[in-house]
Every structure is written in structure tokens, then in C-alpha cells.
């Protein structure tokens, strides 16, 4: 970190005690102008340095027992996902079976953290999971484009929560973000957060998806992260998995730095979920190294870090089989999704 960068950063962190206290939070979002001033006042990102840092963290070699631990941890962090137009109740049921018992031949394999489906599939997922300690996440708010009116988005969310979703993955309106209507997004997230509340006083966890591939710059990703956290997100998530550029180590690194700084500033811990494009054990372990280095042990659990993935699980299982048997495994030895 250069000295200049460190100085700019110090200003932000010191802001925590003064302007970013509980009362300061509300102040930031009191008007479009103050929100913009705050978000554009965040320190800029050195893109080359960021990519070098992400690439550097991806070079660690993790073998034997550490690898075995990382594989099991990664499996337990997966939001096993199916978000296709062709999803059927049957497909969701088999996905839930896989979430409960990823490798039918080996009961030692941990279950995944959650299954992630469209709202209309939530009842089938709840039923199939029974009492298993696996959450059901539903994507809502006109996923994946986010192009619908507020009432539609609220109804979408309410339907998912009423059907029993434990977590709601919402998308932000990237059009509004890119045209600078930050307050609109702030209010959207806050409204959806309210819609996540259940009659009994509990609430579904809210994950906010930025679609980092469409935000163009790292600075925008940092701004979106702070915006969502200010508005009350429980988790921030990189992508829908539906566009060309999904989670990359560099994008996720921006999110991680944002949640770290947010906790330093406000004391509130927010989770991170990279999603889309993470297909191999090697990729997953790079992310785990980043979590460990940037965020530390506090985030190294399924409660605070998740992988949005579908094919990743099979690769983790194949690597797990390799470690157990010594023989390189193949797709014939895992279930076909």
C-alpha cells in the first residue's frame, strides 16, 4: 500500500468514529447529494495493484491435510444453485438430495450451506430438505435483470418469504446505479429488507447482488458495496451468474475490503458471496485464501462466506475422492446434475 493511499484510507477509517456512527449512517442517506458525496468520497481503487494482489493470493500451494480441510470447508459454504428456465420440482428435489448428501457413497462429506432457487421452487425445496440444517435461498426482485417496478419486486420478495425462504438474493437496478440514482437503490434495498421480515418478528437474510460484471469499474463496485451495506444488506454478492463476467478474484477482493472496512467503521459484520464462474477446487481455494488473508477467521465459516455455484461441488467431490483413494477421479464418479 503506498503512503498516499494509506493516508486517504486513514481518513475513511477515522470517519467511523465521527460521521459514521449510528446517527451518521442515517445522515449519509438523508439526501441524494449527501449519499453521492459519501460514495464518491470513498478512496479510489488502484486497478493494477488490486489485480496483482488478487493474483498474488492465488499462487499459494495448499496440499494434503490443509487441502482436505479446505475442500470440506468449501463444500459446507456452497449455495447449491439451479436458476434455469427449465427448472422442475423434480430437478429441485434431486438438487436438495445432493445438498443433503453430496456424495452418496460417502456419508462423511459435509452438507452444503443452502440451495438457491427461484421463488416458485421454494416450497418444493423446503419439502425436500425436511428438517435438514440447510437454508433455502430464493432469488427475487425480477432476477436476473432487476428490471421491474418496485411493487413487483416487493411482491416477488414477499412471495419467496411467505413460501419459507430463509434467505433472499436480490439484484440491484444496475441502470439506476450507472446513471447515479444512488438513493433510489438505497431505498429499494431498504424496502426489500422490510419485505424480508416475517410476521413472527424474524427475518429472512438479505443478500444483495451487484452484478459486478456490469458495473464497469472497481470504484463502482466499492461504491455499490458500501451503498448496500449502508442500506442494511446481510450479505453482498458479486453476480447473478447470467452475464459474461461473473465473480473474479479481483472483484471479490473489492467486496472483501469493503466488508472489512465497514466492520471497522460501524462494528457490523456483513457476509460475502462470490457467485458464477467458480468451477474448480483450485478456484475455490484461491477464494478461501483471500478470505483468510483479507478478512481473517471471523469470516471463514458458512455464516459469513458462501460460494454461489453448481458445478463446483462436483469438482470438489472429485478432488475429495482423489485425496481419499489416491486415484484421480472423473465425472463418471459423481452425480450428473
Amino acid at each position, binding site marked *: 500500500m503506498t503512503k498516499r493511499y494509506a493516508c486517504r484510507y486513514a481518513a475513511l477509517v477515522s470517519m467511523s468514529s465521527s460521521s459514521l456512527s449510528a446517527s451518521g449512517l442515517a445522515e449519509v442517506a438523508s439526501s441524494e447529494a449527501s449519499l453521492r458525496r459519501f460514495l464518491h468520497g470513498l478512496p479510489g481503487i488502484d486497478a493494477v495493484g488490486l489485480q496483482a494482489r488478487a493474483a498474488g493470493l492465488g499462487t499459494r500451494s495448499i496440499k494434503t491435510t490443509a487441502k482436505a480441510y479446505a475442500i470440506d470447508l468449501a463444500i459446507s459454504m456452497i449455495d447449491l444453485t439451479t436458476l434455469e428456465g427449465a427448472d422442475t420440482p423434480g430437478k429441485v428435489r434431486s438438487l436438495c438430495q445432493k445438498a443433503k448428501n453430496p456424495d452418496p457413497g460417502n456419508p462423511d462429506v459435509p452438507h452444503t450451506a443452502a440451495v438457491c432457487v427461484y421463488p416458485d421452487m421454494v416450497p418444493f425445496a423446503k419439502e425436500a430438505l425436511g428438517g435438514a440444517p440447510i437454508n433455502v435461498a430464493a432469488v427475487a426482485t425480477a432476477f436476473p435483470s432487476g428490471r421491474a417496478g418496485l411493487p413487483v419486486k416487493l411482491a416477488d420478495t414477499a412471495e419467496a418469504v411467505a413460501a419459507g425462504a430463509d434467505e433472499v438474493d436480490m439484484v440491484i437496478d444496475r441502470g439506476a446505479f450507472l446513471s447515479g440514482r444512488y438513493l433510489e437503490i438505497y431505498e429499494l434495498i431498504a424496502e426489500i429488507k422490510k419485505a424480508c421480515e416475517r410476521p413472527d418478528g424474524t427475518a429472512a437474510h438479505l443478500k444483495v447482488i451487484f452484478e459486478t460484471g456490469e458495473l464497469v469499474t472497481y470504484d463502482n463496485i466499492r461504491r455499490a458495496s458500501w451503498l448496500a451495506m449502508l442500506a442494511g444488506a446481510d450479505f453482498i454478492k458479486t453476480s447473478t451468474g447470467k452475464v459474461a463476467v461473473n465473480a473474479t478474484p479481483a472483484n471479490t477482493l473489492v467486496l472483501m475490503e469493503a466488508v472489512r472496512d465497514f466492520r471497522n467503521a460501524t462494528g457490523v459484520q456483513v457476509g460475502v458471496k462470490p457467485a458464477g464462474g467458480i468451477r474448480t477446487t483450485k478456484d475455490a481455494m484461491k477464494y478461501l485464501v483471500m478470505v483468510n488473508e483479507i478478512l481473517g477467521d471471523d469470516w471463514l465459516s458458512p455464516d459469513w462466506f458462501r460460494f454461489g455455484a453448481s458445478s463446483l461441488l462436483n469438482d470438489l467431490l472429485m478432488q475429495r475422492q482423489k485425496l481419499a483413494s489416491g486415484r*484421480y477421479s*472423473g*465425472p463418471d*464418479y459423481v452425480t450428473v446434475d
Partner: protein
Amino acid sequence: MSEPTTALRLDVYKTYKLFVGGKFPRSESGRVYEVTDRKSGEWLANAPQGTRKDTRDAVSAARKAFGGWSGATAYNRGQILYRAAEMLQGRREQYIAEVALSEGLTAKKAAPLVDAAVDRLVWYAGWTDKVAQIAGNANPVAGPYFNLSTPEPTGVVGVVAPQSGHGFSLLGLVSVLAPVVATGNTAVVALAPGAPLPGLSLGEVLATSDLPGGVVNLISGRTEDIAPTLASHADVNALDLSGVVADEGPASAKSLETAAADTLKRVLRPESASYDWTTAPGTDRLLTFLETKTVWHPMGM
């Protein structure tokens, strides 16, 4: 005024490379080993020393290519193999030189071996759309059903290329490789460590024949690294041990067959070390790496 002189120039040597997934990578290890003239022992070229990791990468490439290749029409596969024969014919002189140096033959004796390799490719190209007729059947069954058996490719086949016998370096390689891919399998080949040059050059022929990347993968290097990796890899469905020469150690037929048994592979046992590869092949190799799919269809409905 100076006398006209012959211009001095440095020879441009060829960098031989592996053929994996349709690309020509150097070995992942960055290592090479010296290949020498069979007769004089002089240095010929540096061949890449393929490692276990290179072999595993090749298996992944072959697995990825399997769906497309096995799903291609037999007609299409035949055309591509025929095209490979055309390309090989076009580079006849180069192969004659490489075969002569690899096997310690004169160019005159190597020429018919290269011609035979071209002919063998054409022969197997012709078999692609006929193998179902000899390996498939309409079975008479005691019930009101049509019962039809058709051959299906086994999957990824690991091949240990011939290391000895008349014509082993090119003709022998083509004779073991062509039947594997003709029926829709994909192949990972451990080339003969002492004579890999014709095989490595064959990759260039295959790459210009519209063969989809990954259908054939050619690895040069120590057989005791490559063959056991293929034998123990769960994602390899069958093993052709034609070129195995070691009597003991990890690259011996016994130890490879033992490793293959752990993952239920189909295994073709080694050829004799003095096998004459110009012998007419017959259909045995074609029919070895096939599975039979049988369909029952009700009649009179």
C-alpha cells in the same frame, strides 16, 4: 570486389512439442530430453519430457472432447481420418526422414512404411461407418420385441504406443491409434520414449485435419511416468498396452494391469516385441474398445 560467397546461415531447428487438447504445449515441467539417431547415436532433437501432470491434463482434454467426437456421425469421423491420411501423404518426405532416423533404416526402406501408414489411416477411415454392421445385431428374442444391439465407444482410451517391431515408430502408432478414434473413442497416447519424433509430428498432421482438439493427445516422455498415470486414472475407461516392453517395475504389463483393475478398465494386452506392424490388422483392435448398447422395443402396439 569480393568473390561471390555462399551465404552463411544458422539452421532453424524444430521445437518438438506435446499435442494436448488440440494445442501444442511444452511440457508443464519445462523439461526436455535428447532424442538420438537409432544407428549413429547422434543428437536429433530435444523432445518434451511429458509428466504425470501433462498426462492428467491430456485425460481432461480427452474427456472434454469425448461427447462431441462420439456424437459425430460415423461419416464425419471417416472424412476426418481420411483427411489425416491426405495430410500425412503431403508430408511424406519429412516422415520418411523421421522414420529412417527413429528406426535406424535407410530412406528407401522407410518409404514403404510411411506409405503403409497412410494406407492404414484410409483403411480405418473406411471402417467408421461399417463397424456397426459387424458389431451390431438384430437379436431374435423370445417375446414380442425388436431387440437391437449397437456398438458404442468405450470412452477415453490410454494407449502405450509401440516401442519395437518393424515399422513401430509411425506405422505402429497409426495402427494402434486409428482404430481407437475411428469408433468414437478419444485417446491419450504415451509415445515411444526412444523414437517420439514421428509421433510428435503426427500431431501436426492431426491438427490440420479438422480433428476436434482433445480427440488425440500425444505425450512424449518416460513411459514409467505416463503409463501408470493412465492406468490408475479413474477417468480413463480403457487401456491399450500394445507397446509395453518392461518386464518389471511400474511400467510393466503386470503392474499396469493391476492398477487398471482397480478402476475396472478394459485392457488390451501387449503385442510381442518383434511384431511386424506391416501385417494386415484385421478388426480386433476396432472391436476391443466398444461397449454394446441393446434396445428393446415393443412390437405390435
